[in-house]
């Protein structure tokens, strides 16, 4: 394998032999070519990192910027705009340094361990309601459509103080924002315009009549320097929370069920010992080989990494899922160990830009798993694991559906 030098670049994302399996190339790449040349869906080239230490280093090194609008930065998607990584949110929200930190810290107060513990019963109640509806319709059911997809959008809508009646619109907008190939540029632009119109009116309404939600709080809160968020930043913040919090968690709920049920001994162990729910969620996050394209970064200067020299102007793809299978970081990395602890996986990234909502995602996954184990201990896949299919065309990896019986 010599993807690092003059040879042909690997087409990226790299296909997998089965929906829940990692690409066979990962192990070779980690061993022999930890900085590999790849061709992105846009046709542009980037450098793929697959080792734990390299991925962690790049994600926490501020020289590797998230600004992919540099003239020579690679575009990710094949639409004209390049999809979510080159979109308008990244123009409006502060992306780097102190300004980014001030913005981020206005949000993080909503995601503390204490708040998550307080929020958990409400999330379990939502999950119970969705499970009730699924049970009412009877088996077989698609766990993704019945539970995985609706739950996180309900949680985000609550966070933003959005009416229950508008949850479906949010779900559609969220889907289009993460487009790499599924929607046309016109559909993406139309969804973007509708969302901005909705959120602008929503911000105005919350300013006039604040509720108990995060958005209401942000309309009046001040940052560490006494500054307030302008409306455009509030709207973009709402969009960022939706984009970051919906599809990712929805897919992770579905993949969690798929991974735990594909080898039913895993499920049975959890049914017998629900105290493993917390570590099982972390292990599922680590083990997920279908996590999407990873995190792109751009480096403006020459830098030494992974035993090679990256020239200035390189776009790097951080393969977190590949890094999470690195034997030098995790014992028996290809074995799912539901009790693994500690588990410093990179599913939420690392460093100053690691997932803002990771505590919320963890809480949702733990709540869903706990409810499922309690309510449907007899849960099983309704198809052989080999028949599970990946969704294509979104930046976030997922399964098309997770057919289950109980």
């Amino acid at each position, binding site marked *: 394998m010599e993807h690092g030098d003059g040879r042909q670049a690997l087409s990226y994302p790299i296909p997998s032999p089965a929906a829940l399996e990692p690409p066979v190339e990962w192990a070779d790449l980690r061993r022999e070519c930890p900085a590999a040349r790849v061709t992105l869906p846009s046709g542009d080239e980037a450098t793929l990192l697959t080792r734990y230490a390299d991925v962690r280093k790049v994600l*926490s090194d501020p020289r590797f910027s998230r600004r992919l609008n540099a003239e020579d930065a690679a575009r990710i998607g094949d639409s004209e705009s390049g999809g979510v990584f080159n979109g308008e949110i990244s123009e409006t929200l502060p992306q780097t340094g102190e300004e980014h930190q001030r913005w*981020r*810290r*206005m949000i*993080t*107060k*909503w*995601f*503390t*361990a*204490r708040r*998550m513990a307080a929020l958990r019963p409400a999330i379990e109640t939502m999950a119970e309601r969705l499970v009730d509806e699924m049970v009412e319709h009877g088996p077989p059911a698609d766990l993704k459509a019945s539970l995985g997809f609706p739950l996180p959008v309900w949680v985000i809508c609550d966070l933003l103080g959005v009416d229950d009646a508008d949850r479906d619109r949010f779900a559609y907008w969220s889907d289009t924002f993460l487009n790499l190939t599924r929607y046309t540029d016109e559909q993406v632009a139309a969804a973007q315009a509708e969302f901005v119109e909705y959120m602008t009116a929503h911000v105005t309404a919350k300013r006039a009549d604040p509720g108990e939600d995060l958005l209401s709080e942000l309309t009046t809160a001040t940052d*560490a320097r006494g500054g307030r968020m302008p409306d455009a930043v509030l709207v973009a913040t709402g969009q960022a929370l939706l984009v970051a919090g919906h599809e990712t968690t929805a897919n992770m709920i579905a993949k969690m069920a798929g991974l735990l049920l594909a080898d039913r001994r895993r499920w049975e162990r959890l049914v017998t010992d629900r105290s493993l729910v917390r570590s099982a969620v972390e292990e599922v996050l680590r083990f997920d080989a279908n996590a999407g394209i990873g995190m792109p970064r751009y480096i403006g200067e020459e830098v030494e990494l992974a035993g090679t020299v990256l020239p200035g102007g390189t776009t790097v793809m951080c393969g977190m899922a590949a890094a999470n299978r690195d034997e030098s970081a995790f014992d028996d990395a290809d074995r799912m160990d539901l009790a693994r*602890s*500690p*588990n*410093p996986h990179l599913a*939420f*990234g*690392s*460093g*100053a830009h*690691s*997932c*803002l909502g*990771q*505590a919320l995602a963890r809480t949702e996954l733990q709540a869903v798993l706990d409810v499922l184990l309690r309510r449907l201990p007899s849960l099983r896949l309704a198809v052989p694991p080999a028949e599970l299919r990946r969704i294509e065309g979104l930046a976030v990896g997922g399964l098309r559906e997770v057919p289950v019986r109980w």
Partner: protein
Amino acid sequence: MKVNLDQDKCVASGQCVVAAMEVFDQRDEDGIAVLLNDSPPADQADDVRHAATVCPALAITVEE
């Protein structure tokens, strides 16, 4: 054991509080971690090492 916490690096993931709640807490105003005890007793040492390992910001360092 001596624990150091770099609040400037902290990203408020809350992982340290979950791992070692006797040693770490989070500020109400922004979720940034605070150190409750920089010299925790031996029976909390494992939890603190766990917290340092899983901190996504690498903001916790431990001197044994």
